């Protein structure tokens, strides 16, 4: 630690000495939405005249050092808002709140002198960042319900797990290697309905950033990506509402000031109504039950999910603001008849309490406490005499402080610390009968602590070169076992001109908790499990390089190449018992992986037609040959120790997104995706197991090389039409969208159907979604 402090001191001393001794003043404050007073994250504040600029941080705060001149024109802008400008004659430090007006349509777009369309993207040292505005997400055609995670899947380097799945696979990483945070609180299972929908209600979300690489030092704990979702804060100007009625779910959001210009609240809810339909189907078929053995109707279980988001914020004074937000979401799945009762509930709870304090115009601090909880419970009651309940849970309490310090116009320094307490209940089981003859319980509980301390400096060396140098030291403690990780973070940008820059970066990450699931899909029964003496932390080192340039006036082209090494990857031995097992340690196997690829991203954010084209060419590999295990047995090797592609390895991945704003009333949208088929395992042979105990021989598939086959290529086009209406009470729109417009039969999974009598077999493919039209009515007042 002393060495690090010394290095930091030298770094600051060296870089500060380079500064010219001129009089400078600080312009600081917040950039907000004129209509509702919401802070704008990532808004640009810059002076073309002095060639200095900055972005608002994730709390909407900015601080900009300006040399004292007669007058300095400062331009502030944010995507989807009419840019603004103001001229200052600085004689002292100044704190201001700047307001921007939302563009109601691209037709309102104002071209402002000195504004360069893609300035921030070209100038930033940040690599591997994909951002999604909710406005964009709402326009993109969806499978019945606007889904932010699925919109992220349209960005290069980000892949879906399969047809309709909201799971995310980033640059060769697996689904559990994504850190998903909602207002800084970790969301452990971000999907509903076994992965078909994400937990984020688009009405409550302000914006989403996905980091695929170049991870800022404040983030840690996962290997492959950070998905940072920020909730809206609520309208500070007036009471307002919005909502929507769709085929799958309905939404309602209410927001308004607690005290005008001082604080606000937002309350948002969403609920599906599959259950209302399936109950009617069950009722209509109640006399045609398949239990009679006549192959009749099988009762459809009840299912629904809901989400609730709430947030309040209040300015305690000029320098202090507090925020409290919460999320509660639940999936409810049940089956009930006279003798058998089955309930399956799962969901997340998150709470965030945040305090922003401004020490002075150059030092901003945010202190946050978060609570996260994910649990599932399966309750089963039979004949009202036997019961069992099985479940798992993870709870986090996280305290963190982040400082944001601008010692001068060349440096933006962030440093902070966080401490997390993890509580795990794994495979909790209770079973009992009324007569007391059955009574047993099982399960494991763990408490672990995770730590992180970091510092990073975004340093503008000169007009051409900017570097972001930082490091994070992470630690983990569980049952007397300690792990420490040194995670350097470095990125650099070299500007060839105002419109062309080269970028490069290297990051290292550690992951101390692991998802226990052996399924190709993300299931609610997948549980989180801590590192311990036997299960070592996973690690990843990623290097990336790229070029970003503006093409003409409207296009931005980014190309990045990356290589990622994955250490101590976890998987599970063949035949692993993962569901209710008090000795899960023995089911893990350990290996390593690597991934590399190229991502091309061409975007157009201005004009009547906006959108992007993404193309990723990538390879991903895993090998489980026992190198990482101290107690390796031959059975622990996967694929007999040979390297194999993980299921989500995708050689080619293309996405095209186009949004066309025809006029104030009509918008047309379309997306097209293409991806190499998933790597899958198919049997190459079959054995006849005679099993004389039952006199019921079985044809058993023989699986050899893991994931050595490719499912057919996946491609699909979605399209939508949005009709905007203005009413006396507000505005509304009617959105008609078509999922899978050309009715492509994309493989959900492939199986082989056997006929034991003839020993004949036929391969079959299952498809989930044909062309699905959906209509949604959205309103806002």
């Amino acid at each position, binding site marked *: 630690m002393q060495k690090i402090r010394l290095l930091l001191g030298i770094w600051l001393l060296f870089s500060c000495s380079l500064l010219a001794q001129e009089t400078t003043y600080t312009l600081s404050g917040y950039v907000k939405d004129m209509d509702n007073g919401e802070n704008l994250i990532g808004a640009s504040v810059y002076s073309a005249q002095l060639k200095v600029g900055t972005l608002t941080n994730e709390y909407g705060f900015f601080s900009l050092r300006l040399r004292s001149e007669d007058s300095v024109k400062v331009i502030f802008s944010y995507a989807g808002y009419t840019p603004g400008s103001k001229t200052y004659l600085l004689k002292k430090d100044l704190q201001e709140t700047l307001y921007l007006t939302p563009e109601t349509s691209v037709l309102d777009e104002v071209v402002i002198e000195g504004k360069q369309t893609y300035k921030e993207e070209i100038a930033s040292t940040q690599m591997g960042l994909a951002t999604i505005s909710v406005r964009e997400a709402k326009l993109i055609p969806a499978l019945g319900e606007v889904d932010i995670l699925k919109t992220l899947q349209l960005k290069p380097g980000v892949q879906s797990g399969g047809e309709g799945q909201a799971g995310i696979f980033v640059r060769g990483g697996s689904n559990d290697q994504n850190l998903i945070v909602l207002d800084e609180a970790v969301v452990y299972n971000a999907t509903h309905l076994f992965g078909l929908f994400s937990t984020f209600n688009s009405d409550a979300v302000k914006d989403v950033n996905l980091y695929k690489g170049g991870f800022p030092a404040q983030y840690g704990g996962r290997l492959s990506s950070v998905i940072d979702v920020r909730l809206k804060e609520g309208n500070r100007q007036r009471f307002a509402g919005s909502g929507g009625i769709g085929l799958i779910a309905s939404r309602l959001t209410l927001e308004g000031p607690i005290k005008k210009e001082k604080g606000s609240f937002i309350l948002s809810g969403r609920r599906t109504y599959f259950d209302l339909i399936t109950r009617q189907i069950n009722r209509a078929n109640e006399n045609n039950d398949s239990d009679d053995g006549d192959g009749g109707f099988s009762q459809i279980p009840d299912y629904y999910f809901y989400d609730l988001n709430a947030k309040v914020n209040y300015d305690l004074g000029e320098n202090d603001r507090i925020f409290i937000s919460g999320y509660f979401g639940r999936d409810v799945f049940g089956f009930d008849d006279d003798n058998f009762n*089955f309930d399956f509930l799962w969901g997340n709870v998150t709470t965030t309490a945040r305090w922003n304090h401004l020490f002075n115009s150059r030092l901003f601090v945010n202190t946050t406490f978060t609570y996260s909880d994910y649990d599932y419970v399966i309750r089963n009651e039979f*004949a009202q005499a036997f019961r069992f309940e099985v479940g798992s849970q993870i709870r986090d309490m996280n305290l963190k402080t982040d400082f944001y310090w601008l010692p001068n116009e060349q440096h933006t320094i962030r440093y902070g610390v966080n401490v997390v307490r993890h509580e795990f209940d794994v495979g909790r089981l209770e079973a009992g009968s009324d007569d007391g003859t059955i009574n047993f319980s099982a399960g494991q509980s763990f408490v672990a602590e995770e730590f992180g301390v970091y510092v990073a400096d975004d340093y503008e060396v000169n007009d051409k070169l900017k570097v972001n140098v930082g490091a994070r030291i992470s630690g983990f403690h569980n049952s007397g076992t300690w792990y420490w990780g040194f995670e350097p973070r470095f990125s650099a940008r070299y500007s060839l001109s105002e419109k062309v820059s080269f970028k490069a970066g290297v990051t290292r990450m550690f992951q101390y908790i692991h998802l226990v699931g052996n399924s190709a899909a993300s299931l609610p029964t997948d549980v989180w499990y801590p590192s311990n003496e036997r299960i070592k932390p996973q690690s990843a080192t990623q290097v990336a390089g790229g070029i970003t340039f503006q093409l003409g006036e409207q296009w931005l082209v980014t190309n990045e190449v990356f290589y990622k090494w994955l250490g101590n990857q976890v998987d599970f031995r063949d035949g692993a018992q993962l569901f209710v097992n008090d000795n899960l340690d023995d089911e893990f196997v350990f290996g390593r992986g690597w991934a590399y690829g190229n991502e091309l991203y061409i975007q157009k954010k201005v004009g009547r037609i906006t959108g992007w084209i993404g193309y990723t060419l990538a390879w991903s590999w895993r090998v489980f040959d026992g190198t990482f295990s101290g107690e390796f047995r031959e059975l622990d090797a996967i694929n007999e120790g040979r390297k194999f592609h993980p299921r989500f390895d995708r050689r080619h991945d293309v996405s095209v997104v186009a949004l066309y704003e025809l006029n104030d009333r009509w918008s047309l949208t379309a997306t097209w995706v293409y991806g190499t088929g998933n790597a899958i395992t198919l049997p190459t042979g079959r*054995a006849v197991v005679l099993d004389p105990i039952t006199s019921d021989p079985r044809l058993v598939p023989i699986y050899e090389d893991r994931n050595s086959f490719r499912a057919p290529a996946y491609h699909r086009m979605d399209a939508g039409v949005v009709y905007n209406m203005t009413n006396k009470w507000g505005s509304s729109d009617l959105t008609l969208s078509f999922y899978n417009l050309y009715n492509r039969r994309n493989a959900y999974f492939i199986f082989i159907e056997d006929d034991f009598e003839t020993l004949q077999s036929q391969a*079959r493919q299952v498809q989930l979604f044909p062309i699905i039209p959906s209509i949604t009515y959205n309103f806002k007042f």
Partner: protein
Amino acid sequence: MKRLNIYVLALLAATTGFGCSDFFQTDIELDLPPHERQLVVECYLQPNFPILLSLTETLEYFGQPELPLVNDAEVSVSWRNRTVNLIYGPLVLPDGTVLDSGIYQPENLLTGIVPEDYNATFTLNVRTKDGRELTAETQLLREVPIDRIEWEFNDDSLAFVLTRFFDDGGQNNYYRRLFQVRDFQVERFVDGQGQVVSDTIRVVNDEQDFTADDRFSNGELVTFGTGFNYEKGDTVISTLYHINREYYDFLNTVDDAVAANSNPFGQPSRIISNIQGGTGIFTGIAVSRQERIIE
């Protein structure tokens, strides 16, 4: 979990409608690589019963349909200093039909009986004419007796049946539980004169077949139950096989392999086998069985 998967699929079916239209399933052609055939052996040693062994081969998935019997191997089972050679013997059915069963049996049935020697290690050796060799080892297990069978009726005069036994707390135990019902079935067949005739024959229907271990009930009274599926007069057979870890893993991975072929959530896995040089199982088993008429 299997029941849960069924529910998930039912729900997906309900929400997407799959299963009710040709859109949702289509035949496809798969180009599988050549498969190198492996020997598959099954041999279950039960005290006081003759040693029987089946020997087959794995097949190419889309190869010619055939029962892949291997009937030209040298097979022996040894324990302590004794060796019993097994020879291939086709089964002769009561009607005189000779069935090429793939079963190997002792040369001398009287000397090929499994002894009640629970401490001996039994060794299997198989050598085929083309030079392939298999070996395996196992030990016998002691019977875990069924303590009692009970039933209880609901208001609809349907009963559920409970089978109870005591687990030995001194060791890790694995079980295979089989629950069957005797039934009658009308069979139609062609007689010697070419006439179609019907006959009612007694059959046994498997109602439950699963494995369990004693992780949650070590040394305790264990109860296996059924649904409310049985009426007064039904004949039920409850069988408890005491099995070893190797057979337990084999059965579970066979189930996993079969399930993965039809379950989108399944992870295909290899069959865990204690056979060196091939696949299958060579194991001791101990059986406890009770048959009752529900009254």
